[in-house]
């Protein structure tokens, strides 16, 4: 198979990493001061004091996700590997971690997305030093047996099964496969069913995966809550300091340009609502462009709950049951989508025409500036509303830091959103929301929803 490669780590290096130590003041877009250190081994350590007496949120962001699954037959591996990180080390064999977690009562889990893997613990400050020790230990010294690996692969299969009845999994699979013919965004984070079934045979590969991606220069530690910074940093230096692996320059294949419209159809074998999706390929989320900020605004502008399309299609004519934008920040060029959950199959053409008309209107220069302002206000207040607990603050910081590769990404991104101008939406729509750059997905259920 012919592949074109781009240097993966350039994306990381393209954004400014902080100096060895920095203190960032609170800003309107992140209302807490933040301290950032980089250890000599490249590990970035972000701390945010937060009013959560006796509690801390501790998160480890690894900049690896299904995007990094470049080898054929290994889709779903970043997520599978996330599970393996709970399988023990020489110092803390399987089961010992659970004892520490239980002793203190931490809420302890992890998640994986296209671009990153986040390990998160939330619980008493009293357990912080012990947590630093066991976390550093597993990132440095993970060790698990082949039988344990093979058994955990079956838990992943169970995870696939629990979601398989929902149309969204199939939609993601088909949309990704159609839009991305080379880039790894062509497969879902949980991976192809066949690859999941074959996971038990990939023990050796899993060791390679760990060595390759679980390196201090590819990891950001985020701690939010009630803690003593000196004590924390002392423990961090002691336990993470000797971690000395380096990320290699593995490359992710670039997606060639799309030159004409694509389409994909799903015949869903059960009852559900029909769907119609427009998805355009759009640029990567980077802090040196406004593209991510513009798309954040654009999703609400076109199909958000106060958009003319929503009012027409969902509230007034009731042709669609739901309407929403599909955009989330990604390291590499990804997609911007409009999703309609149709009331019935017969509404498809009218909804498609309405989508086309709304995009055309924007691309030809008509934009409602007051709605852009309302969206920016919503984004700003939504951010504040979403920061109620140490864990929710840490999760947001982790997510943005992981995608953009810099600890202050959350504040910078939201500042950029605040700077989006109505004209930016027009320019963006003209450039990217074209027919040739689009993929349409249609889903038709065996029994149309509501027509049992």
């Amino acid at each position: 198979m012919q592949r074109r490669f781009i240097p993966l780590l350039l994306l990381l290096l393209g954004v400014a990493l902080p100096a060895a130590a920095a203190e960032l003041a609170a800003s309107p877009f992140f209302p807490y001061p933040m301290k950032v250190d980089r250890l000599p081994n490249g590990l970035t350590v972000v701390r945010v004091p937060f009013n959560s007496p006796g509690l801390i949120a501790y998160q480890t962001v690894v900049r690896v996700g299904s995007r990094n699954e470049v080898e054929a037959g290994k889709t779903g591996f970043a997520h599978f590997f996330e599970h393996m990180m709970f399988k023990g080390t020489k110092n803390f064999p399987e089961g010992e971690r659970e004892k520490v977690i239980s002793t203190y009562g931490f809420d302890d889990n992890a998640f994986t997305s296209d671009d990153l893997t986040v390990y998160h613990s939330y619980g008493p400050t009293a357990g912080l030093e012990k947590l630093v020790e066991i976390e550093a230990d597993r990132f440095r010294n993970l060790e698990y047996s082949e039988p344990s690996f093979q058994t955990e692969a079956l838990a992943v299969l169970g995870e696939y099964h629990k979601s398989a009845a929902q149309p969204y999994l199939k939609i993601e699979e088909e949309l990704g496969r159609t839009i991305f013919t080379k880039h790894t965004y062509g497969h879902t984070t949980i991976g192809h069913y066949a690859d999941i079934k074959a996971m038990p045979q990939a023990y050796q590969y899993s060791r390679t995966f760990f060595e390759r991606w679980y390196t201090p220069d590819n990891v950001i530690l985020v701690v939010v809550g009630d803690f003593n910074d000196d004590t924390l940093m002392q423990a961090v230096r002691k336990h993470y300091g000797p971690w000395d692996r380096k990320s290699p320059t593995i490359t992710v294949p670039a997606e060639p340009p799309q030159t004409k419209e694509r389409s994909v159809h799903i015949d869903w074998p059960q009852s559900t609502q029909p769907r119609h999706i427009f998805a355009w390929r759009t640029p990567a989320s980077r802090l040196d462009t406004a593209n991510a900020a513009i798309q954040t605004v654009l999703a609400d502008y076109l199909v958000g709950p106060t958009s003319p399309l929503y009012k027409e299609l969902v509230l007034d004519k009731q042709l669609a049951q739901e309407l929403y934008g599909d955009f989330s920040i990604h390291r590499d060029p990804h997609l911007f989508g409009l999703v309609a959950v149709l009331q019935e199959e017969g509404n498809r053409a009218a909804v498609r025409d309405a989508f086309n008309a709304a995009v055309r209107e924007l691309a030809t220069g008509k934009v409602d500036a007051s709605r852009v302002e309302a969206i920016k206000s919503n984004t700003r207040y939504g951010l504040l509303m979403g920061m109620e607990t140490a864990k929710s603050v840490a999760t947001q910081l982790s997510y943005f830091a992981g995608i953009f590769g810099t600890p202050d990404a959350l504040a910078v991104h939201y500042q950029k959103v605040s700077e989006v101008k109505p004209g930016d939406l027009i320019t963006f729509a003209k450039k990217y929301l074209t027919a040739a750059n689009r993929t349409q997905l249609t889903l038709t259920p065996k029994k149309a929803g509501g027509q049992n």
Partner: protein
Amino acid sequence: MRPLVSRSLALCAALCLGGCATTSQTAPAPEAPPPQAEQAQAPAEPQAPAAPTSVPAAPLERPEPLRLVVQANPASPIVSFRLVFHTGSVDDPKGKEGLTSLTADLLAEGGTQSLTSAQLLEALFPMAAELSSSTDKEFTVFAGRVHKDHLPRFLDIFTDVLLEPRFSPQEFERLRARALSDVRNGLRSENDELLGKVALDALLYQGHPYAHFVGGTEKGLESITLEDVKAHAARVFTQDRLVIGLAGPVDEALQKTVVSRLSELPASGAPRVELPPVPTTGGRALVVQKPTLSTAVSMGYVTPLRRGDPDFFPVSLALSYLGEHRQSSGVLFNELREKRGLNYGDYAYAEHFIEQPGTTYNRTNIARTQQHISVWIRPVVPANGVFATRGALYFLDRLVKQGIPQEKFELSRGFLLGYTRLWEQTDQRRLGYAIDSLFYGTPGFLEEYRAALAKMTPESVNAAVRRQLRPEALNFAFVTQDAQEFAKNLEEQPPSPITYASAKAPALLEDDKAIITWPLPIRADAIQVVPAQSFMEK
């Protein structure tokens, strides 16, 4: 039922180790049937009393009309409103199943006298304010959150939603169509785990007002008219059923304003539904047939045990030890998932449980007068459906017979002492607990839980386990493809051998020998097969 306007980070396509949120909906407030007798003088351990033949409806407390609960938090910029009405799907008239939930949705989303639904969205959107309703078996919550910058405007809207609803015919049709789709598609087709849980409710509470899906039945929703909704709103969203929760930067003026406005609600309305006793019949199985890759399993039994009973805390600890929801420390999680790779997770619950989205914690304000204990086995490959069920029974039985080892007891206690603090870290959840405490008559519920944990011993927990956990009383709900074949297996109970792709420890294989033929407490004449397409039809 759905959040109206809530914007924050969308963490898309994220997969979690312990299982991402499964929203279900069901469950209200239990009432403490058994004694209030404090464990005062360490009575000689009451040994397992004869199992009750039914669970009576000992009513929940009735706080005075418009009872106000305030959790002031002046440092927070966000004001939280939590209006908890003691009404839920139990108040749906026969033949109009889904009415309470649909009424709540129409209030929360359908606009007010001064704002159409579109204008309501437009008003809330720039504030990123949240305004949502959620209905359960006995309770309905209207929750609101807003930044203090927008408090006055939001307060008007939030109270108008209840006091001046628009009752637009168009919105009524839209929301009813959505509710129908939630039954026909969401419940029956798209979420086997939810379907299994709702099927268990239907089985345990057959003939009882808890039996139908909170979102309604197909026929029930079809027969509801806008006039029904208007009348129902006036009957159930009344002062005498309402507790008002306020949190955040809340001053006296705000408290007065809110109480004063809500005193425009009707003083009272429909008589309270009298809940019948629930027979504790065990040994029944409901097998729901649908096309699916896997088999979902839920099991449980009704119990007089609920908050306020002295055994509630020790049994909660024991079931946390057996299977704390979506944590990796439970016996079932370790034995069935971690060691055997059967599925994604396996959990146990001392009371009805609905995961709060975005967390691993139980929702608040889903209290029930009559409660049940349950075990949830997430989907397994069909060939292992019976083995996994037997496995759960085997480890439950071991808990009852052998109790919790000292070291594990200490771990579970330590875990809960820390973990329960996480349950009360948001204003909405703090309000939720405080309001639940009013109905259960259990002031300071979480503090009391931690205080009780500090005093527990393995012996006291094991004694409560022997009194309260009865594997033989379980009933079973399955969602699977070859339902007839599955039902035959339940009936005939042939051994369920299992093979593993990797080497297993001798101790595990020894346990398996027992699991493979473990008797299923299911009666051959109490196995029912239903197609998913007609589930919750009427």
